[in-house]
């Protein structure tokens, strides 16, 4: 029998239809896991598969959708029995294949859920190993509504067997997965992982899938599978049934086949009749095998960014070179600073974020993994994984949710041998630097030759030309006046050869005064030569001016709408800034106006000392809103807004205080105790404490007692604030207090949280019960006043 991957190159093949639907009609009670019948009633499962093969389908899905070690202790036995049933049904038939069926684990992956990516891969891997032993012909990963879990399942297959892998995801009526990905993003990621077929199943009927199939036809170079439901459930004669019958279903399937679907089948509500009619009506239609799509795409868990004629901005702010604050953040593991940079760049208009965390004194792989995961929790932009270390690239690409930019490979044998296999395994769009063993060529033609050699070598690993973006290197004109001309010529030549390009733009002006003038003009010239991507600073106004004006001038911004929105926001900016005689720092803080508070603080600092700005303006304003809160004349949201305005003003003031003069004497260690993941209350206290000038050592949530003690000792801080929201975690709070006091009776512990009261606090040995955030601040102030 031919391999299924060969068969789909020649002709349209057919999946079976619904499993649960047929089993329910055979007597499976609602709520009873159908997989148990693999052992309890195998004859019924075999007859289900036979019915589908008799209807003419080529591939049956094993009855193993919900089986995994999280749900069934005897998962291996259920898998073996399920595959055995399908193989018995396929026995003696031509072109009859058994697809080992993998459904979702039922858990959501980190960072939003609590299942780690590695654990998910391991759960699926256990299934795959068993299936491969039992002789399945292929693996079908289906009904996945999360791109990350899909990736975990695909990797489990790729890393544990050689079986072909097909993937179908669940799209909703808006054409997106439950966690946000669209067909472009999914196609990019799955093709990067080299699946053998991809598409959609479940949730929608064939009518709604018709609205989505066009996107697959446009983006996918891989055969597309369509396994729809029999429409939507509706009540007929008191019974709930799916609303599309076999005749109507098969009519739609004709249109789906004409629209580019290569592999047809059914999902919930469909039966052998649906499949038989679909085959009957589509078997003689011309077969459309997808052609190779020459589009370059990087993707996140929501969307793809196409690298083409419309210029792409790659934000460069998460790269420690020349950035002392980022270096400090990386050394101290302060992810908040890094995440803020990511969010600000997203809001400023970057399309992709470069992430480089390389510092000699930190574990780069570990930090890169932490950063990639944390950034993907707060930004939906695709990332560019930027490292010189192949191990770091491999580990990050494996766990990245989407298809990343990979920065970078160069033309040296060492680099190509190390990096190309990684991209072959995990997918990605590779940045190729035009440098080889002889260095950087001093002319454009030779740089193009290096690029072409990298592309040739990449092809040996199955990496397509479209997945390589060449960086012909911008070198400063201060050392070679010809360097811009050479680079621009290389960009033009590469474009003529259908090769996409990227440049680290700002290098061009290194060593010169007013660098942005040179950089922005060079950027405009490079765009004119056909540059596709620029790694640049999206906070630079002149660079963004160049970007928006270029697009408007080159017909890339229909109706100039993006330019107008950009220009309007820019002209509105001065009105946001307060006039010197209208309002004050005090009122800005009281009203919670962050930007105004910063402007007023900056203005005041020209006339009075930093300490006076704090003591005469910020603290009195905070006291006013604090008292209003205590008298119930202001409320928590207002208090928080004021605290944030005060903190922002405070940060402005701190810029004028030399680092060694910063007052760290008023400090507190804050943590939500072990087992508790609710940190909103603790965060409110933190904001307020910071606005009053306290140094806060925030340990986050779910913190073990030992870590709290360690932090307090390390920073010589004797004041500790603990928070708990659940009754079940109050014992952890008691345990923490006991540990602290055992170590040193001088520790003062303040507790707070929804489940606590004075009585509870006394019982667990706390020194103070903070009824609310303001109360906690007042206690901390009294504590330090007494000292």
């Amino acid at each position, binding site marked *: 029998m031919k391999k299924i991957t060969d068969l789909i190159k020649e002709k349209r093949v057919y999946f079976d239809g619904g499993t649960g639907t047929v089993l329910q009609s055979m007597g499976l*009670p*609602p*709520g009873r896991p159908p997989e148990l019948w693999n052992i309890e009633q195998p004859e019924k499962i075999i007859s289900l598969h036979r019915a589908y093969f008799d209807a003419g389908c080529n591939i049956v899905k094993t009855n193993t959708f919900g089986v995994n070690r999280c749900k069934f202790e005897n998962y291996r036995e259920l898998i073996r029995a399920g595959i055995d049933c399908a193989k018995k049904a396929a026995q003696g038939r031509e072109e009859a294949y058994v697809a080992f069926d993998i459904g979702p684990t039922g*858990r959501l992956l980190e960072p939003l859920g*609590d299942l780690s990516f590695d654990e998910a891969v391991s759960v699926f891997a256990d299934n795959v190993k068993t299936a491969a032993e039992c002789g399945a012909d292929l693996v079908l990963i289906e*009904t996945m509504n999360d791109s990350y879990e899909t990736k975990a399942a695909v990797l489990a297959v790729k890393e544990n067997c050689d079986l072909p892998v097909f993937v179908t995801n669940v799209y909703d009526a808006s054409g997106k997965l439950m966690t946000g990905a669209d067909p472009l993003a999914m196609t990019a990621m799955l093709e990067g992982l080299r699946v053998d077929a991809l598409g959609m199943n479940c949730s929608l009927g064939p009518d709604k899938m018709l609205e989505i199939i066009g996107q697959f036809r446009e983006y996918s170079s891989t055969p597309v599978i369509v396994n729809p439901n029999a429409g939507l459930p509706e009540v007929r004669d008191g019974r709930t049934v799916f609303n599309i019958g076999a005749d109507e279903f098969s009519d739609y399937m004709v249109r789906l086949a004409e629209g580019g679907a290569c592999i047809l089948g059914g999902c919930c509500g469909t039966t052998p009749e649906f499949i038989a009619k679909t085959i009957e009506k589509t078997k003689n239609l011309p077969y459309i095998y997808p052609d190779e799509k020459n589009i370059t795409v990087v993707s996140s868990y929501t969307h793809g960014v196409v690298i083409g004629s419309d210029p792409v901005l790659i934000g460069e702010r998460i790269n420690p070179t020349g950035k002392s604050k980022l270096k400090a953040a990386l050394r101290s593991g302060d992810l908040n600073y890094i995440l803020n940079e990511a969010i600000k760049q997203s809001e400023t208009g970057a399309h992709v974020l470069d992430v480089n965390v390389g510092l000699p004194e930190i574990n780069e792989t570990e930090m890169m993994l932490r950063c990639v995961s944390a950034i993907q929790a*707060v930004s939906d932009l695709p990332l560019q994984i930027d490292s010189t270390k192949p191990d770091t690239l491999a580990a990050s690409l494996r766990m990245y949710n989407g298809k990343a930019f990979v920065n970078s490979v160069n033309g040296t044998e060492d680099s190509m041998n190390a990096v190309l296999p990684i991209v072959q395994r995990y997918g990605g769009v590779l940045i190729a630097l035009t440098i080889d063993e002889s260095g950087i060529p001093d002319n454009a033609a030779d740089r193009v030759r290096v690029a072409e050699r990298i592309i040739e070598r990449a092809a040996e690993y199955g990496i397509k030309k479209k997945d390589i973006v060449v960086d012909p290197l911008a070198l400063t004109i201060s050392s070679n006046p010809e360097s811009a001309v050479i680079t621009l010529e290389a960009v033009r030549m590469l474009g003529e050869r259908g090769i996409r390009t990227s440049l680290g733009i700002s290098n061009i002006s290194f060593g010169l005064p007013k660098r942005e003038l040179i950089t922005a003009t060079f950027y405009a010239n490079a765009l004119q030569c056909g540059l596709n991507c620029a790694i640049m600073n999206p906070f630079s106004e002149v660079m963004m001016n160049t970007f928006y004006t270029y697009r408007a001038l080159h017909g890339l911004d229909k109706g100039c709408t993006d330019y107008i929105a950009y220009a309007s926001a820019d002209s509105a900016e001065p009105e946001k800034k307060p006039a010197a005689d209208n309002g004050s720092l005090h009122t800005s803080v009281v009203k919670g106006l962050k930007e105004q508070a910063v402007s007023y603080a900056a203005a005041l600092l020209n006339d009075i000392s930093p300490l006076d700005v704090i003591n005469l303006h910020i603290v009195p304003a905070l006291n006013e809103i604090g008292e209003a809160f205590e008298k119930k004349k202001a409320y928590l949201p207002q208090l928080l807004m004021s605290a*944030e305005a005060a903190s922002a003003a405070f940060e402005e003031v701190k810029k004028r205080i030399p680092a060694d003069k910063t007052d760290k004497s008023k400090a507190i260690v804050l943590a939500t105790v072990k087992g508790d993941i609710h940190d*909103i209350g603790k965060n409110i206290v*933190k904001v307020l404490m910071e606005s009053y000038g306290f140094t806060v050592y925030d340990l986050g949530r779910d913190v073990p007692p030992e870590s709290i003690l360690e932090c307090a000792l390390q920073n010589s801080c004797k004041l500790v604030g603990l928070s708990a929201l659940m009754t079940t975690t109050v014992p952890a709070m008691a345990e923490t207090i006991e540990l602290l006091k055992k170590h040193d009776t001088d520790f003062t512990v303040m507790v707070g949280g929804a489940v606590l009261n004075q009585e509870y606090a006394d019982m667990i040995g706390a020194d103070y019960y903070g009824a609310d955030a303001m109360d906690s601040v007042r206690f901390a102030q009294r504590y330090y006043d007494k000292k």
Partner: protein
Amino acid sequence: MTYSDIKIITASPEDFEINRNELALRLHTDRNSVLALPDPCVSAFGSAVRYKCAYIRTPVRLSEGICDFGFMRIPGRSLYKNLTGCSEAFVMAFTTGIAVDRLLARLNITSQAEHFIVDALSSAAIESFCDYACGIISKDTQCVPRFSPGYGDLDITFQEPLLSRLSARETLGITLNSAYLMTPVKSITAIMGIKNTQEDRT
């Protein structure tokens, strides 16, 4: 597997009003100061939220302290008392969608004030959506107040069979973590008994 008897209700923010008392409670404010919610918070939440509910109508048999739904058997007094006089119930799950979780994660980094406000807004919104959806679901029936796992002695572990019966992973994108807490975080499961009619009783 999606059962054919599962029904779906979706809503947009314009379809119902968020209960102002509920919002005031979550914001720790009085009812009137709710009016002053910052625009960026309201619009960010409005862009992120995708209200969705899945439910079934199912028989329930009450006997010897157990509420038997066929696909799950729940012992204990609280739900039993709530469902007394009912032989059918709606089993339901509601969510604001995962984009609200992402918004909250982002605000947790950029602004604790906005995080607090949007968190409160989301909590009030999902309660109000439950009220709105229950109004649609219970139309033409007489129902007792809805009851959720975690109330009284109804253990939250029952969220597992309940969500499984609603194919909530597929229909709503709701998953449980190892502590039986739901993601998206602003999600609710509930059971709402249908009072027996005079005819049923006779």
